[in-house]
């Protein structure tokens, strides 16, 4: 006789966060008075009570092995009473009550290959997505581009002397899981050819009406191909969004020769000073060039450097560009302005320059 299975547990939700809070945090919860950045990657938060908690932040690749996670756990035991957290940009933070532990922890992190920084006016970790590591939809890889771009920018992570915070994001297709649409600099994987219709399997794997409805531009029309009910794609009407593929596997978008990357700039999320903004198109297309995407790396580094040189203190990339104007942004960065930069989607008309405010 088999023993009855242990009762299944469901719908318990996540563990309660309180279990994981450092005693100093528990004690001063909601009672913080101010903070200081002691060094790049090192924050000190002081409570009304006078107590302090020290945070040491290190960059991670986000894709982490259990082996590395155990290393982090060990470091936490050694220096932060076992308490740690991750940030909304996938950095790790160790929470220390004893400032004496800061330097040794930094040293060990450095040795383990995890740069300490990302605070204040630094370039923090790149929010990114799955890419070829796990997603079917990707026009490019994500982790690889992040590694390639962060290597030359690592000093901007370990130092915090930019005019303001600079947030970079990568998304491997227009679904934008990295939410690149509001980043100072965004790298976006794109397709440039219509989906190829796999007429043989289409009827089996998707419903034609749903498929047709999925196309925002109405580029998909019903068609009968050697007897079988299928669809055709009007090339001229396709703007390569990939929504049809998301709803129907029989319309793959991948095209090694034409897929690539586009670069976007000037978005922000915070309400500090100016309202949140979307990122705008800077470079419509760069080749998809693994393993190190030199064209992408050069483009991003160039924008970062021009920004660092010209922006005023506290100006985010988008705020800087709005002050100097887009024409000057293109001039300073040497990026070409093309027909593709001019919006032709739903609200295009509102992006035309409808005033005489001009610099020459």
């Amino acid at each position, binding site marked *: 006789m088999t023993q009855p299975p242990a009762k299944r547990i*469901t719908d318990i939700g996540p563990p309660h966060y309180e279990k994981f809070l450092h005693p100093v945090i528990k004690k001063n919860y909601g009672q913080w008075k101010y903070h200081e950045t002691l060094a790049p990657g090192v924050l000190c938060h002081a409570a009304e009570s006078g107590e302090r908690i020290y945070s040491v932040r290190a960059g991670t690749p986000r894709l982490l092995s259990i082996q590395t996670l155990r290393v982090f756990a060990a470091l936490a035991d050694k220096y932060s009473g076992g308490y740690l957290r991750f940030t909304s940009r996938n950095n790790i933070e160790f929470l220390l009550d004893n400032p004496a532990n800061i330097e040794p922890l930094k040293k060990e992190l450095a040795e383990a290959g995890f740069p300490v920084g990302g605070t204040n006016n630094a370039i923090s970790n790149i929010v990114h997505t799955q890419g070829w590591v796990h997603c079917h939809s*990707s026009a490019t890889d994500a982790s690889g581009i992040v590694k390639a771009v962060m290597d030359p920018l690592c000093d901007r992570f370990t130092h915090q002397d930019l005019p303001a915070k600079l947030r970079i994001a990568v998304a491997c297709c227009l679904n934008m899981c990295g939410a690149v649409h509001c980043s100072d600099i965004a790298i976006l994987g794109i397709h440039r050819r219509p989906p190829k219709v796999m007429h043989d399997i289409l009827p089996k794997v998707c419903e034609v009406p749903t498929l047709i409805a999925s196309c925002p531009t109405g580029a998909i029309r019903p068609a009968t191909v050697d007897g079988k009910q299928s669809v055709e794609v009007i090339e001229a009407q396709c703007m390569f969004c990939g929504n049809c593929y998301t709803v129907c596997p029989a319309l793959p978008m991948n095209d090694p020769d034409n897929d690539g990357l586009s670069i976007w700039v000037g978005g922000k999320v915070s309400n500090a000073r100016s309202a949140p903004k979307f990122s705008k198109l800077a470079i419509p297309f760069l080749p998809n060039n693994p393993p190190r995407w030199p064209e992408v790396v050069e483009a991003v580094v160039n924008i970062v450097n021009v920004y660092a040189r010209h922006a005023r203190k506290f100006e985010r990339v988008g705020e800087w560009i709005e002050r100097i104007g887009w024409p000057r942004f293109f001039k300073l960065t040497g990026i070409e302005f093309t027909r593709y930069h001019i919006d032709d989607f739903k609200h295009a008309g509102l992006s035309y320059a409808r005033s005489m405010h001009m610099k020459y």
Partner: protein
Amino acid sequence: MADDGKVKTPLLDQLESGPWPSFVKEIKRARQGSPMCDDLLGQLELSYQEKKGHWKHGGLVGVLGYGGGVIGRYSDVPDKFPAVAHFHTLRINQPAGWFYTSDAIRTLCDIWEQHGSGLTNMHGSTGDIIFLGTRTDQLEPCFQKLAQAGFDLGGSGSSMRTPSCCVGPARCEWSCYDTLALCDQTTREFQDEMHRPPFPYKFKIKFAGCPNDCVASIARADLSIIGTWKDDLRQDDAAVADFAAAGLDIQKDVCDRCPSKCMEWNGAKLTIENSDCVRCMHCINVMPKALRPGTERGAALLIGAKAPIVQGALLSSVLVPFVPEEELLETLKELIRRVWEFWDEYGMSRERVGELIERVGMANFLDAIGLDPAPEMVSAPRDNPYIFFQLEEKKS
């Protein structure tokens, strides 16, 4: 295959060097634990060679009684890389604020070592712990081990997605409400909507303690709860003077950058016309000790953010300008239910709530969920004369 029985990955290997930590190293490190990693490297190397992905489209797999929490994934070259023929992901609901103890981390590692690739994302961009890659037969046992350890799955598909929040009161002096508590309570309140996808599409909720919005809620959540305050900024003149003494150019760096130009600095004293302050946080950000949010705290509720697919990206827009902290939980529960009810009934398949609101019109949406129009909801009134007058009813 290389002599050592490991696949050769000349392209990926180039991503092991350089100062930034390498995801390739991580995958290689995980090899000791799981053969899946070899084949993952192999398939990834192939993608790098061919410049194209090798994962098949979707695939519905999951655990008993849940409609979400797992992303099914199959290789399109399973014969070449059998170990990743199945390579499903589990989304595990993170603890609010992404706080852990070393023990909790080790527990997660041990479970994943037994049941999967040993690869994770800390974290996914919605906020979940991502267990990256396992076989269908491992899903249920892995899930139950996690449950016994006190963890549950997160959301996927057309469900309430795993809510997330900023570090808030746990380690930030600016949090205008308890982001962790509210995030945790909301998650528990709607377990069913999270695990059993009932909606036309996904619904995301993010909690930020102040307008700095450190979880990007206004850009990435269908419902954004963002802390703010109603009364005056708290001001510590001595600390202001210290900043000035320390060389901060208060006129240039603070006053001139104030979007509402409501600050005056005469070289000795900072005067703020609080009634004009739009609570952007800038001056507070620049002078943490000297300025702080007021004490009459709460949050604004904004609705509708999403990525561009397919009608264009949206930022959340103001739905309720201010809710006092003590009323937040109840207001939120009630409002979320009303919004879902309307969305359920009128939302089209794969239509996010923000798209629905634009389609039916904000005014009609407000009627439906029982809110009155307020000027705070718009950046400006209409500039076109095309008004659908409703002469029947008296105008709301």
